[in-house]
């Protein structure tokens, strides 16, 4: 198995294609564990992982928790409600206090872009970004890539359309980085109000979904948060669906074996028609299964045997603080 030479996973932008390859390959290998009758291996026995979730999450959080359990890591999940965060504790204080309990890794989801980088700068633990603001969601892009690679046997040369709220989407940013690094051809589509400035330096942008979907090997749909409408980004859900929603008719413009992905949670009838979400080309549930495999791979590469082997210099033992 190839090594992963970084201490943290903060985003896709800073990864090399080889790093991405290593994570995908590891996930491919570890995925098999999920099909066993006894879904547990001792790979991370004695390791402690804290899932620090400052934003609501179902899929990502559950997925990390399952991955941690399957790999025998001890883990705990802290969410904003019911923790000292709701008593006004700062992110750094919360993280430092958790660290005083000697975890090996902190998985963090936060509404502030850069929050994982902030923790990486001030904490000892390995930091995994489980989604930061509108910045990155690296494990989502990795699981999307794994899903594409399983079905298409390759990423290079695939034509992938990413459609929806590009402005606020960390999933879009991570996917653009990953797919471009791996040689796929990405096209972005959104109403102009939801296209962030300069994104066209990463991939071409069109305002017409028909153009984006034309000849696509895969279409990734992004969630449209309904509060965007009140923010004045578009006039109505009806018009959004009519002009930018993925309908069956539009899917027919893509390749016959097109794959439809969605990171969830979906707004049926807004960005995606129900028939498409539930259609034969939809791999939305595969994404979820692969999500567990990717998170197992990330945990393993950052904390497991191979991480220790690839560590160039052993970390100096530091005096641990008391809680």
């Amino acid at each position, binding site marked *: 198995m190839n090594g992963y030479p970084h201490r943290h996973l903060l985003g896709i932008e800073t990864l090399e294609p080889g790093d991405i390859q290593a994570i995908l390959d590891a996930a491919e290998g570890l995925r098999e564990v999920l099909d066993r009758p006894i879904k547990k291996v001792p790979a991370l026995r004695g390791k402690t992982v804290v899932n620090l979730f400052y934003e609501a999450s179902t899929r990502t959080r559950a997925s990390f928790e399952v991955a941690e359990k399957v790999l025998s890591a001890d883990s705990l999940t802290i969410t904003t409600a019911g923790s000292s965060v709701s008593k006004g504790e*700062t992110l*750094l204080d919360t993280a430092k206090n958790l660290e005083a309990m000697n975890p090996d890794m902190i998985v963090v989801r936060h509404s502030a*872009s*850069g929050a994982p980088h902030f923790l990486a700068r001030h904490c000892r633990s390995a930091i995994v970004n489980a989604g930061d*603001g*509108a*910045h990155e969601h690296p494990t989502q892009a990795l699981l999307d890539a794994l899903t594409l690679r399983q079905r298409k046997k390759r990423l290079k040369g695939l034509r992938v359309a990413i459609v929806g709220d590009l402005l606020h989407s*960390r999933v879009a*940013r991570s996917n653009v980085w990953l797919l471009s690094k791996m040689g796929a051809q990405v096209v972005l589509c959104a109403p102009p109000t939801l296209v962030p400035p*300069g994104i066209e330096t990463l991939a071409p942008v069109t305002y017409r979904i028909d153009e984006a979907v034309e000849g696509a090997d895969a279409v990734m749909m992004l969630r449209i948060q309904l509060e965007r409408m009140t923010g004045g980004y578009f006039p109505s859900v009806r018009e959004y669906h009519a002009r930018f929603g993925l309908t069956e008719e539009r899917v027919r413009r893509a390749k016959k074996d097109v794959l439809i992905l969605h990171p969830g949670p979906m707004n049926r009838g807004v960005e995606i028609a129900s028939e498409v979400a539930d259609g034969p080309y939809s791999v939305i549930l595969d994404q979820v299964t692969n999500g567990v495999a990717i998170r197992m791979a990330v945990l393993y590469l950052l904390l497991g045997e191979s991480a220790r082997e690839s560590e160039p210099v052993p970390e100096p033992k530091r005096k641990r603080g008391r809680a």
Partner: protein
Amino acid sequence: MRLVLKGGRVIDPSQGLDDRLDVLIEDGRIAKLARPLTGRARTIDVRGLVICPGFIDLHCHLREPGREDKETIATGTRAAAAGGFTAVCAMPNTDPVNDRAGITRAILDRARADGVVRVHPIGAITRGSLGEELAEYGDLREAGCVAVSDDGRPVASARVMRRALEYARAFDLTVIDHCEEPTLAHGAAMNEGTVSTLLGLRGAPAAGEAMVVERDVLLAEMTGGKVHIAHASAAASVDAVRRGKARGVRVTAEATPHHLLLVDQAVKDSDYDTSTKMNPPLRGEADRQALLEGLRDGTIDCIATDHAPHTVDDKKVEYDQAAFGVVGLETAVALCLDRLVGAGILDLAQLVSLLSTRPARILGLPGGSLAPGSPADVTVLDPERRVKVDPARFESKGRNTPFAGWTLKGAPVLTVVDGRVVFSAPRR
């Protein structure tokens, strides 16, 4: 009390002077420039150094009253002295806001007691800087305010800005505006552009500044009032000022060292380091180049620091939540000497003018000149001195600088206010 600065090179743009002269200071005034000067006096050897009229910062935040945890008049003016400034203009966004004569007087009382450089208070444009009712400019002027500003916030209403420019004329006050269209800047943590897109941070577009600069220039033209554009950061703002000046509008503008030297890429390169967060934000390279061009052609009238000290707690948080602002008093002059003069963008006389003569003229402040009879406010520079920016050694309580670790050539080494030495760099 006589003091002679002996053997230095005098640069005084107010008299078009660049010559080897001794400077005699007597009773807090510049008495004589001659060579050689003889007679009994305390003498400071300034051979190899440059003697300038004292530098004046039109834009800083001393935080007192109300936020003494961030800065006090004592620490802020010590920082100013260490940075080569003999006078600072204090923005009114204290707590309470300096919108009444009583507060102005309290600031001046404190400055007389604790201050080591001159403090010129700036009053608020509107009561509480809320952007609605005008503050009492007559009282503020009489109490000692040298200008009015709601800095930190824009005057959102064009009608209020119009009235402010009109009413300020009665007291010969300049209105200093923090130009920002609030609906476009809402929630922004940095400049809007490719870098904000890549970082996933909400951006404020440069146009949001420039359109308010345009508005203010038009209103100044219409009312005959004097407007000064605080911390211009956008190319289009420079352009608006340039066109206004060409039409004879009474508009002046300042730029900060951080906007002159850094761009928004710094936010990314530093991995969301909150010492790159300020308002207006660091813009793009084209904006930075336009600011430099504005400095060269006189569109930008002066360099001001926008010194904005914060506590560690205000900055050691997520980028979105961090306070806006960087400290500047102790780095501005060295940065300008190294990166503007050293880099060949300005000559030394231009820089002295931007830091002294012109800021004095913009607000009609004492100083800005070494002509006999002027207040004995003097800044002495060592163009060869190498310094490393070390926030731990700042006199300011604020440590929030994006320039930590920079090695710079050229630094202020002696600051004289009212004939008294208030800062002297240790000899090497």
